[in-house]
């Protein structure tokens, strides 16, 4: 009797959150899946559009291109920053951590606005370049793909730093000292020993950045100004402006499947690395 009461007590503790999410999240998602097969009429028409319509294809290709560029640049930048964060002196580490965390805690909108203020036609960057005399006409730096890439990198660098810093922290430094001691140059030690040994972090950071990039919504919507539409903004347009819920649903399903496959890949790779390491 007491045991049964205890069991029920535990169940009453665990159950509410999963139940809440089943009703508020899982079932509604199935509703979205249903949209994709039934709106405007039953069939696979919307999925055919996802894979054949040139407009949708264009959005997919742009998203992939932007995501790849952002992933590459973000991982490189985050690598350099993690290096300083992990191997700097104590005071350098505190300062770097402060600057990594600040953008982390400031909202997406504020950051996107900051980039608008920097990059628009009469913005700080253009004014500066013009007053120095490097350029005469203002450069178009925002409301285009360049602005989108810059804004996304700014958002993603702090996220990429975490796995990179963790892989550098767990590195056995005696290996580096051994290489240096045996006459390897600084550069050679870095390329042939440091980079390969931090490869799990590089792979982890790239996949995380890429997953985030694929579904990125707010930053590209503001800095792209409707001219460089990625998947997420396209889904928004399909939901509210074109009011084609079937296509919005189909693209959501495709996006979830793509991200799901990437996460499985990520878990596989990190587990293999753990076995090898």
């Amino acid at each position, binding site marked *: 009797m007491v045991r049964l009461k205890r069991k029920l007590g535990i169940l009453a503790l665990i159950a509410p959150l999963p139940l809440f999410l089943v009703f508020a999240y899982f079932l509604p998602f199935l509703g979205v899946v249903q949209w994709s097969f039934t709106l405007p009429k039953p069939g696979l028409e919307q999925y055919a559009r996802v894979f054949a319509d040139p407009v949708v294809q264009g959005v997919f290709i742009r998203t992939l291109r932007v995501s790849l560029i952002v992933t590459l640049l973000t991982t490189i930048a985050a690598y350099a920053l993690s290096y300083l964060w992990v191997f700097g002196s104590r005071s350098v580490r505190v300062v770097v951590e402060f600057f990594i965390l600040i953008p982390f805690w400031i909202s997406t909108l504020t*950051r996107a606005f900051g980039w608008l203020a920097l990059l628009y036609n009469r913005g700080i960057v253009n004014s500066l370049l013009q007053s120095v005399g490097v350029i005469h006409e203002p450069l178009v730096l925002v409301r285009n793909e360049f602005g989108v890439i810059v804004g996304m990198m700014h958002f993603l660098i702090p996220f990429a730093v975490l796995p990179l810093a963790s892989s550098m922290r767990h590195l056995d430094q005696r290996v580096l000292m051994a290489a240096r001691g045996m006459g390897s140059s600084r550069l050679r030690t870095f390329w042939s020993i440091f980079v390969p040994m931090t490869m799990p972090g590089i792979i982890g950071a790239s996949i995380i950045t890429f997953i985030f990039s694929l579904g990125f919504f707010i930053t590209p919507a503001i800095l792209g100004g409707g001219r460089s539409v990625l998947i997420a903004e396209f889904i928004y347009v399909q939901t509210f402006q074109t009011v084609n819920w079937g296509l919005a649903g189909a693209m959501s399903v495709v996006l979830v499947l793509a991200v799901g496959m990437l996460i499985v890949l990520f878990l596989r790779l990190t587990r293999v690395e753990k076995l090898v390491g």
Partner: protein
Amino acid sequence: MTVYRPGPFAFVCSIMIIVFLIAPLFAVVPTSFTPSSYLSLPSGEWSLRHYQTLVDNPQWRNSMLLSVSIGIGSSLLATLLATSFALGLWIQRPRFSAPLIGFVILPMIVPPVVSAVTLYFLLTSISKVSTALGYDTWAGVVLAHTVMIAPFAVILILVALSQLDRRIDMAARGMGASLWQRISLVIVPNLRFGIITAFFLCFVLSWEEIGVTLFITSVNAITLPRLVWMGLRDNVDPAVAAVSVLLIAATIIILAGVIFAREKWSRMSARPSRVVTTAAG
């Protein structure tokens, strides 16, 4: 003991990246003091008129109050659900806990725009039955934010629980405490910092949530981020700059305070452990 130190090249690269991370935050400051009504740098005269707008215009005030009340409502709900869930798992350690945790953190992993479409579906469906809890209502936004922030609370509280000493709970159980007594008198008091941290993070996440909010509100429930978004999309309203400056300043003050306190604390408690490391090495 670190022998390996970054060379000048790595140093210069990192400084450039830090400037990249910080530049847009500083760029907001001069823009907020412009005397004109469009996005521009103040030439000559600096003006506080956009800060005045924030105080005078009831739209800004109302949306801030709305965001605070939604933040408190959804964080309370999310922290409560997450704490109860995590406590149950910690006490019982059921075999199926890993897939269960995987399920409840889904809203954190799924691309935000897909969650947004999903919650849009949910709230428009509810609207057909009840107008109080549905699309574009206070309760609807609280519901949607709770879904989005609960996973973060679950993770923080599970981490806090993993650092808790199980023996104190076992002692309480051995001395005949009921499940409710163990939770309310032993576990939760020891977990209070984790719970407070989870609540605080949830509040911040709800306060600045925009992706989902954009899908589930239109004209009634205009939160602060929603209002900022409207001021950003087409013609940029410099009042957005004034709001941004205030938010950035608040963030920097809180963050610097937290880092400073932690450094001071760890320096105080690090001394004995450093002796141990040296002795071991």
